[in-house]
């Protein structure tokens, strides 16, 4: 098969899958999960084959779409090296998430709807990754947001879930206004509608205003500071869907936008991105400590890790961490899903909150494999050696350090490095602490836990394989160095060596983080503390308030005024009628009385109140007119 038809096929296949799911949902009642998993497996294989055929080269297609005035809108897609590797991530995670869901949600009555949404999401996500035309990019950007809305509100009878879905969509939309304006700005600045033909060349890099507008959209999507509060709430959706959308792929789209615009934006934009990332890294990590719900803690951890990618400013360092994080964070969510699933199905705990850390502790005995997987993912998050997290984190520090050497903005870079160190320390603390609170020690709810009796493969395989994928040998056989990495060469990802002093800082952060965990092991937050709660809700209450106020203007002033104006006419009419009666009438009593009686009787026949008669009059008039015309 030629590359172009294969590419188009890969772009279309998830949409077709979604339609197939919708069409066959009634027939394939029990086999629906398997069918859906098969579809996403086909997509995965096709994608791998396509990328293998490309041999690391980009591949672009330009299809005619429509033209408007002088501008031609083409449907352009490009499989660049960065989009290829992220697409593999999406395909992998999507496949494992579906596999996991088949067991996790097997009692769910509306499974067809769930798989339909997942395929729709995948379709929009591939379109977003491969889109070269900026408006296709924008369209798929909005569509992944809509799919996220649908998946968060999947259990639509849960009041919290639908509120969270609405909040997610609105905060994303808020950012998207910026994205829209930014993309229009880009298309004017570079006079093209395709990312691939945007070159600094003679026009210079895109000005900071455009960069800020674009990043506003990315802030919304990646739940960065200050539009971050939707992501913890979004955890009301099904856990596997959270793993796919709100951990590994969709939220990373903001970073992906940063990667796309990196070549043609200036250093000012890059630094803004890094500063937003640094704030999110530190604040997300702090708030991850103050959650007693494990999913919410992971959500804050995602915000924090996305902030880390943002600190890479959209360079290759961001890309590498995006992929590495996608694997281990999806794994963390799926492993957490296993824990929740296990607790939820315990007879003795049915009245308890299965996501609360208060119910956990000592679960290593019941769920040894999950504990092992969780440990590997946590190690990758901490960036311990022998994991991929080590490569990507050190690479990011190296990137910042190198920029600090030869940039006029070196104080900012040094501040960013300091934030990175603090963020790493906090990350090591919260993730190791979470691992401890779930799996180590003794069970705090004093539940009579049964050993997981069923050996549920579709829950175990995804966690195990993702854990394997988090280990170092995929990237490089040398556990502390990436210089001979074939996979990084294939996708042309450049890595930067980190100075040795940084390794010492990293090592200190591990030791400190782990000891902090040990000292704080008896303390559990009493509730989920929300970042910026005091700030955002008041903004959103302000809008309905303003709406009521606008409506009051509409009714009380605008409408009243016009009605009053009309009433004034009636009053004037009464005054004139009174004058007519007492003055004019008084002079011409006899004559006018007679006349008005006669004419009144005549006219009242016409005013019969019957529509048909009115209508015939109308029609006659119109008919006469037409008759006249045609003659």
């Amino acid at each position, binding site marked *: 098969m030629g590359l172009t038809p294969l590419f188009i096929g890969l772009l279309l296949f998830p949409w077709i899958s979604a339609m197939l799911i919708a069409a066959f949902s009634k027939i394939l009642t029990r086999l629906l999960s398997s069918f859906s998993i098969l579809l996403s497996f086909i997509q995965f294989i096709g994608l791998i084959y396509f990328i293998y055929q490309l041999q690391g080269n980009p591949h672009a297609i330009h299809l005619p779409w429509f033209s408007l005035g002088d501008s031609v809108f083409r449907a352009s897609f490009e499989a660049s090296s960065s989009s290829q590797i992220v697409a593999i991530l999406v395909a992998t995670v999507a496949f494992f998430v579906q596999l996991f869901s088949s067991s996790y949600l097997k009692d769910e009555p509306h499974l067809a709807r769930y798989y339909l949404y997942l395929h729709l999401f995948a379709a929009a996500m591939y379109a977003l990754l491969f889109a070269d035309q900026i408006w296709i990019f924008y369209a798929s950007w*909005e569509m992944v947001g809509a799919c996220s809305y649908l998946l968060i509100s999947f259990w*639509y009878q849960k009041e919290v879930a*639908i509120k969270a879905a609405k909040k997610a969509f609105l905060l994303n939309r808020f950012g998207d206004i910026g994205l*829209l304006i930014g993309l*229009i700005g880009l298309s004017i600045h570079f006079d093209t509608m395709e990312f691939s033909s945007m070159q600094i060349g003679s026009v210079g890099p895109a000005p900071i205003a455009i960069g800020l507008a674009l990043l506003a959209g990315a802030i919304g999507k990646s739940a960065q500071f200050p539009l971050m509060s939707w992501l913890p709430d979004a955890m009301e959706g099904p856990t596997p869907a959270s793993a796919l959308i709100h951990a590994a792929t969709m939220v990373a789209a903001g970073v992906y936008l940063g990667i796309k615009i990196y070549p043609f934006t200036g250093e000012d934009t890059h630094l803004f991105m890094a500063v937003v990332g640094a704030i999110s890294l530190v604040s997300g990590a702090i708030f991850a400590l103050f959650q007693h719900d494990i999913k919410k803690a992971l959500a804050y951890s995602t915000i924090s890790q996305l902030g880390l990618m943002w600190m890479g400013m959209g360079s290759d360092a961001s890309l590498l961490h995006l992929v590495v994080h996608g694997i281990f964070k999806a794994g963390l969510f799926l492993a957490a899903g296993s824990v929740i699933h296990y607790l939820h199905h315990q007879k003795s705990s049915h009245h308890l909150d299965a996501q609360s850390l208060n119910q956990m502790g000592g679960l290593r005995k019941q769920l040894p494999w999950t504990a092992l997987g969780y440990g590997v993912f946590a190690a990758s998050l901490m960036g311990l050696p022998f994991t991929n997290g080590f490569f990507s984190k050190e690479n990011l520090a190296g990137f910042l350090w190198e920029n600090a050497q030869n940039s006029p903005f070196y104080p900012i870079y040094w501040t960013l490095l300091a934030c990175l160190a603090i963020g790493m320390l906090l990350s090591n603390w919260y993730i190791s602490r979470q691992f401890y609170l779930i799996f180590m020690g003794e069970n705090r709810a004093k539940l009579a836990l049964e050993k997981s009796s069923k050996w549920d493969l579709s829950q175990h395989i995804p966690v195990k394989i993702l854990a394997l994928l988090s280990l170092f040998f995929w990237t490089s056989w040398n556990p502390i160095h990436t210089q001979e990495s074939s996979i990084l060469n294939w996708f042309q990802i450049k890595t930067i060596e980190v100075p040795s002093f940084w390794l010492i800082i990293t090592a200190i952060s591990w030791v400190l983080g782990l000891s902090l965990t040990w000292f704080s092991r008896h303390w559990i937050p009493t509730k989920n503390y929300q970042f910026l709660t005091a700030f955002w809700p008041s903004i959103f209450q302000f809008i309905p308030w303003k*709406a009521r106020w606008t*409506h009051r203007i509409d009714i009380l002033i605008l409408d009243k005024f016009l009605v009053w104006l009309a009433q004034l006419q009636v009053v004037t009419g009464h005054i004139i009628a009174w004058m007519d009666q007492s003055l004019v009438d008084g002079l011409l009593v006899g004559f006018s009385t007679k006349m008005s009686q006669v004419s009144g009787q005549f006219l009242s026949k016409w005013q019969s109140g019957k*529509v048909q008669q009115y209508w015939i009059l109308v029609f006659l008039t*119109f008919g006469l007119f037409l008759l006249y015309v045609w003659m």
Partner: protein
Amino acid sequence: MGLPLLSCIILLPLIGSLVAAVVKWENGIKYWATGISAIQLLTLIYAGTKFDHSATSFQWNEELNWIQLPLGSLGEFVIKYSLGLDGLSFLLIALTGFISFLAIINSHSIQEKKGAYFSLLLLLNAALMGCFLSRDLFLFYVFFEFMLLPMYFLIGIWGGPRKNYASIKFFLYTLIGSLFILIVMLGISLAYIDPYETAKHLGLIQEGQNFDLEALKNIQTAIANKEIANFDLVHSFDMQALSDVNNCQTTSILHPNSGWLLNGLSARMWGFWLLFIGFAIKLPMVPLHTWLPDAHVEAPTPISVILAGVLLKIGAYGWLRTAIPFFPKEALESANIMAALGAISIIYGAYNALAMSDLKKLVAYSSVSHMGFVLLGIASFQAEGWQGAIYQLVSHGILSSLLFLVVGVLYERTHDRQIDHYAGIASLMPRFTLISGIAIFASLGLPGFSGFIGEFFSLLGAFTSPYIHPAWAVLGAFGILLSAGYFLWTFQKVYLGKTNLFNTAWKLPDLNRLEIFSLFSLGILSILFGILPQLILDWSKYFVSNFLTTLPY
């Protein structure tokens, strides 16, 4: 082609209407109206297939002399029955045909005076078709006024509790608008000379003979040099003649060189703004919109569908056909104010929609907001903006009809439109929830649906336009956030959550076949146009490019 197709499109519902008014069928009348509407729809499809896409101007012109009025020393007045079709007209008559058809088949809630109802509905259809097909301003005005009567009765007789108030309000607003239009119409036709008719009058050319550009120039120079006697001058209401400023008599206050000023504004500026406001009432534009929510709330569902789906489009159509072509320079100078009014309409309508507790009012205010994008797009005077505005007309026609039908489905089952009286009906009516979800996501401008393309191109035009301040475009862009707000809020309250109805006795069966057909055909159209925007853009491209190249930059 021997048959005057365009006249047929107008005459068919007219005849149908007459028969419906006279013949006393109680139950058959609905099928009669449906049949008439279906035949009209087929005619429109036929016209669409025969339409010559390469033609840059009007086609299938039909022209008949109607009134010839000698005015003595002022010359002569000629009023023509003149119809023609171009891409813009076709889009709107196709929309009218389709929406009328859906309105007719969804009229089963009308139980009394069915004959009168259907005959008025068909009459309304004829008037709308006439409006979109007229090339003579007088004829256009006649049809425009004619629309008023059926609409007044349709709201006033079959409406809700406050029908009298609403129908009179509708009537008065529209009447004032048409008064403004009338003033300009008379003024401009007296000031302008129709060179073609003058030449014909003088015997310089024969009927049907080609009147080329050179001949036109000759006549215009002759008129300007006063070589033609006053009583030989012919005035007409031909829109094309009125669009050429060279046809204006030098002595008239409407001439660009006349120094006449009133309150600091030239007569041409006054003309533009009177026409603009006349049509803005129809659009409706803030602050002239308050008739709309009342009319919608009181009107029965099918009438709301026609009102939002088609009637509002006349406002924008009037701008595109008369106000802007007649006074292009003035329009361009006012672009910034127009854009401001558009942006205010978007935001103001959206805020009002956010505060609504009545479903129909919410959709009505969302219409105000969406039509604001049309104004913003037109004010940009860019190909993108105009195409976007025209696209938005069609898209809003589809989506607002869909939304009103959705509200109608609920209202028919419960006779209640309060948003907080419903919760969680997704569990009771899954199909209905699916199509409502499509309607809501399409209306809030999700890409992949038609609502996005219209808003997007209007905004794109507004951003790239050199005539308007970018602040208005930014303000307009915030409208898409607010629209997401009120639509999602409604979706959450009414459809999602635990099922909880105000009245536990309410029965909410899922959609029947007729409803599935009506709602899903609109939903599918919205998706189709959203993915393949060229299906609409190709129709309007010549209208837009022809007009924008003649603009006095």
